[in-house]
């Protein structure tokens, strides 16, 4: 090769051309092993046992350089001219992109390889090679850059030293990074050579990060890139030696998860790479041709470089494994891949060295959710060990191997039965990985506690619930403290297409120590759609802190509604826009006023709703009901057949609110007529319609509202209830009793009802609406009832109708 030549042009002294002549057919490859150094931009993957910033650890800058130097060595051995942008890994090697491009251009190289590894930068874990060139995919800016990439990629992808997750990809950088416009990758911009940027693999795939620590592995990527160059320059037949390479792994011991965070592994990467394995290349006469030793960096890679074509034996030995051999055939200028899966030497029979639960007669009983764990002295054979496992009484469950088959965990599909003595026998037919069985059976026993499932106390939404669409709140209540770890993965809301809805985790409420029951309460981030069905999924894995889980998974279907939708044709009786005109009811005995009325901006109509915060007084019976009343009753009156409609906001207190009506005076009396609105078994707004079964000859006005303790556990701490628009739907004029041709007769001893249809029962109420007496059928004995004015509620045709009666 001739050195630099200054050739004066024909018009000397005007401009000159510098010419650096290489031999006519000698390709010139410029190698750019990326940026150098151990700095923050040099892609340090923190993998055990290395810490952040440790230069002995995994750095893209380091592995890129090893690949680049290998490529340089191999190409020069193959007769290429090479240039390289760095040969050390220091910060000073951090050449600017435009400098690298200018150096390549000045060198006059035919092709340019910029060598890198990739990272997803996300939680996704992939491993496959990619090659880029400048321009749009299929339309390179420098001619033939796509051909160079197509010639390279199959050789990278052919590597069997790694585990690929996807096929290789080739891209024009403008197509791959459309958000960058036509800027593209900096080392391709302005590059006059036929240029590629290769991402040989993904260094954030942890097993790959370990492989990239291997000189052998990096050398092989250099070798494979050289084959791409050979293919491109039609020089595959020009080199007479090949390579033998592969990966040495245990045949069944799992790779250790040594990093602080568990990492994903694919395929053969699940198996433990073997350190310090001696790998020998033997010729046909058994003579050692080459020898190498796998490193201790958790990759198991070996390489025999520059091997003459022929048939060889590769022998792998390791102190803890049986020696293994394989015959390989080496071809010129081609890689021969030979992976090994070594069997461990196991020289004693297997025994159980530890187990749980450990229980002896007289010990406390074992939780019904406790898994059975057996730990062995050797890695065990899956099939013979699981077949040898017998429980009496039998229990269905699943087996899980841990610690590379050293530990077997049996988890019952449901829970163990309560108050039961279980006997586990592991028959001596169980074998370790080497095929030797146990010498004697292993037997253990345990006795279970009296509780085996988590009991669901309440859930909202419940099956068929109508749920107001605004960021609904979901709550699950159970009979002991929930284990909140990963609870969001076990409690899910799906729309009708199966898409999971997001939780507003900032507003989550959990049970805490000392609570009366376990619960999780959390709203959704977004609104749901009225009219659409949704599913609340409770996984069976939802468990308490003792590991006791639900008896079964649940799929609860509920529907989105708009509780505040227009109700045309109804009269607004009260809008609850202000606290003016309302007073808290004071207990006549204790004068207890543990309640408060406020105006709330959480409303369905207007500007405000009315909020009632209440606490019960457990000192007296009357204290278990709290209420508030109108200072002056609204003018609108209700009659039998009307419907009272109201919007109520609930807190899942399971207390029961009532609207209190007061009749117009009759014979000097006014009746208090409570209308129960049902249990507050929901969160958020709900629209309620209550058909009024009022005495036929009276009208009623609103008096107030009460809420009484109904559920002694969930409601005892009081709560909050809100009201918005109370409406009246006037009677249609059709009277069920009249349709049934009902007649009511009162004699000295009985109230008797006759009708054209079935009369289900009668209730006798006093003027305060309290039940005095009731009976099924159409007769009610009133012989023992004090004389006076009463109301009779008749249940007929599934409806009720009420009439006043005078008992004398």
């Amino acid at each position, binding site marked *: 090769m001739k050195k630099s030549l200054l050739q004066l042009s024909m018009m000397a002294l005007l401009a000159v051309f510098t010419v650096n*002549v290489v031999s006519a057919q000698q390709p010139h490859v410029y190698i750019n092993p990326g940026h150098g150094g151990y700095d923050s931009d040099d892609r340090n993957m923190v993998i055990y046992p290395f810490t952040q910033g440790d230069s002995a650890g995994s750095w893209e800058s380091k592995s890129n350089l090893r690949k680049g130097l290998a490529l340089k060595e191999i190409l020069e051995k193959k007769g290429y001219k090479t240039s390289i942008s*760095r040969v050390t890994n220091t910060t000073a090697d951090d050449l600017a*992109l*435009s*400098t690298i491009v200018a150096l390549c251009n000045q060198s*006059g190289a035919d092709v340019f390889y910029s060598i890198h590894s990739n990272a997803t930068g996300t939680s996704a874990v992939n491993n496959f090679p990619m090659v880029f060139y400048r321009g749009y995919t299929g339309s390179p800016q420098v001619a033939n850059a796509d051909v160079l990439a197509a010639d390279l990629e199959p050789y990278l992808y052919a590597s069997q030293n790694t585990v690929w997750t996807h096929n290789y990809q080739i891209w024009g950088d403008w197509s791959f990074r459309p958000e960058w416009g036509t800027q593209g990758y900096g080392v391709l911009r302005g590059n006059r050579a036929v240029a590629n940027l290769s991402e040989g693999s993904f260094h954030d795939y942890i097993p790959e990060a370990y492989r990239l620590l291997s000189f052998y592995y990096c050398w092989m990527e250099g070798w494979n890139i050289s084959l791409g160059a050979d293919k491109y320059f039609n020089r595959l037949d020009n080199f007479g030696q090949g390579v033998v390479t592969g990966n040495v792994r245990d045949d069944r011991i799992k790779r250790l998860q040594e990093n602080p965070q568990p990492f994903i592994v694919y395929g053969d990467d699940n198996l433990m790479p073997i350190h310090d394995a001696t790998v020998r290349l033997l010729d046909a006469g058994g003579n050692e041709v080459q020898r190498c030793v796998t490193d201790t960096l958790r990759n198991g890679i070996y390489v025999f470089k520059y091997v003459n074509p022929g048939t060889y034996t590769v022998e792998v030995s390791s102190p803890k494994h049986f020696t293994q051999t394989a015959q390989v055939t080496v071809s010129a200028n081609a890689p021969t891949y030979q992976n090994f899966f070594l069997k461990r030497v196991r020289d004693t029979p297997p025994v159980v060295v530890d187990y749980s639960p450990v229980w002896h007669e007289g010990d406390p009983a074992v939780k019904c959710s406790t898994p059975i764990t057996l730990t062995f002295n050797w890695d065990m054979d899956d099939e013979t060990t699981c077949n040898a496992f017998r429980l009496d009484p039998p229990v269905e469950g699943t087996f899980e191997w841990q610690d590379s088959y050293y530990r077997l965990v049996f988890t019952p599909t449901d829970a163990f039965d309560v108050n039961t003595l279980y006997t586990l026998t592991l028959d001596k037919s169980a074998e370790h990985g080497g095929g030797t069985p146990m010498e004697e059976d292993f037997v253990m026993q345990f006795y279970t506690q009296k509780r085996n499932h988590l009991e669901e106390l309440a859930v909202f939404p419940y099956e068929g619930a109508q749920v107001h669409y605004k960021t609904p709140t979901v709550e699950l209540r159970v009979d002991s403290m929930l284990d909140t770890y990963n609870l969001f993965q076990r409690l899910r809301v799906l729309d009708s297409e199966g898409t999971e809805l997001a939780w507003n985790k900032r507003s989550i409420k959990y049970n805490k120590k000392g609570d009366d029951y376990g619960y999780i309460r959390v709203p959704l981030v977004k609104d749901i759609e009225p009219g659409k069905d949704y599913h609340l999924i409770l996984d069976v894995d939802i468990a308490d802190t003792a590991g006791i889980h639900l008896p079964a998974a649940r799929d609860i279907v509920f529907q989105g509604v708009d509780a505040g939708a227009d109700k045309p044709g109804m009269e607004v009786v009260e809008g609850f826009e202000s606290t003016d005109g309302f007073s808290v009811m004071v207990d006549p005995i204790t004068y207890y006023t543990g309640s408060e009325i406020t105006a709330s901006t959480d409303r369905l109509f207007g500007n405000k709703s009315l909020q009632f915060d209440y606490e019960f007084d457990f000192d007296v019976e009357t204290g278990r009901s709290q209420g508030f009343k109108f200072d002056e009753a609204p003018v609108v009156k209700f009659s039998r057949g009307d419907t009272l409609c109201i919007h109520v906001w609930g807190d899942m207190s399971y207390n029961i609110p009532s609207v209190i009506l007061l009749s117009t005076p009759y014979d000097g009396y006014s009746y208090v007529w409570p209308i129960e609105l049902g249990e507050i078994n929901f969160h958020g707004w709900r629209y309620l319609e209550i058909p009024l079964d009022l005495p036929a000859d009276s009208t009623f006005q609103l008096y107030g509202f009460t809420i009484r303790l109904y559920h002694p556990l969930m409601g005892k701490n009081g709560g909050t209830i809100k009201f918005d628009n109370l409406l009246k739907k006037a009677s249609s004029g059709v009277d069920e009793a009249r349709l049934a041709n009902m007649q009511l007769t009162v004699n000295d001893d009985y109230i008797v009802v006759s009708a054209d249809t079935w009369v289900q029962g009668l209730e006798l109420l006093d003027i305060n609406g309290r039940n005095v007496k009731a009976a099924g059928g159409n007769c009610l004995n009133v012989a023992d009832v004090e004389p006076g004015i009463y109301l009779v509620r008749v249940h007929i045709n599934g409806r009720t109708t009420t009439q006043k009666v005078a008992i004398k």
Partner: protein
Amino acid sequence: MKRMLIVMLAAVVMLPVMAQEVEVVSRQRLLEGVEGPAYYPVLDNAGERLLFTTEGGALKLHDFADGVTTVVTQDYVAGRDACFGRDGKVYFVTQSVGEDHLVYRTGQCYDAKTRKANVVTPTRHGAMRAVPAEQGDAAWTEGSRVHVTVGGEERVFSPVDSWAGYLWASLSPDGQRVAFFAAGKGIVVIDLRGQVVAMLGNYEMPCWYNNNYIVAQNAKDDGHQFTSSQLLLLKADGTWQTELTKPASMTMQPTCGGGKIVYTTIDGLLYEMEINIYE
């Protein structure tokens, strides 16, 4: 007393440096609405004509006097090292990929008067670059060497260590010094004996604004893309420097001639800048 004397001396030494100021007199877009993205600008010594490369790869010549822009060649890579000869012609290198996939390069000369290009260095495989020469004096780099030809005598220097190599050599207008870039070291100014006059910092693409000042690019990247790029004015003796543009301006590839500075941006917008230097 001794300490006070040292402080006073230091203040005296600093004064001329502190007193130096640069005023950006004007800054205007070039060829706005006429040309698309343009890169690799090259001014002639008089600042009267400008070479640039379009995004599609064509090398074009713009004459400031008549505002006419002509296409020198459509060859995609020709604009990377194109230069003006003293005869006013444009010297450039084209390349093609042969059937053997080797890259073959040809030296050419374009005459704006005839609008024709002629081959001046035959096609061959290997490196080939056009280098501007003034009265036969020229400077260029090859590997980690800078070649200086003065009065027909070629001298080769390697004044600083740089594994990756030297780039962007140019003679000062008075022909007395050479500025070049050493990878990993930055801009180096040497005299004609190869003695280092100054190390100006790790900047790129130096061009002589006049005999005393150099304009250079200061670009940063993340290994994939540029993250900032600005132009700096550097005193050639290494005693002073200042920003001409801000790092976020993404300005790059400066060229100087006739008291003008022309540069482009990351997205190919050409600008002309005029400055006054007060010393």
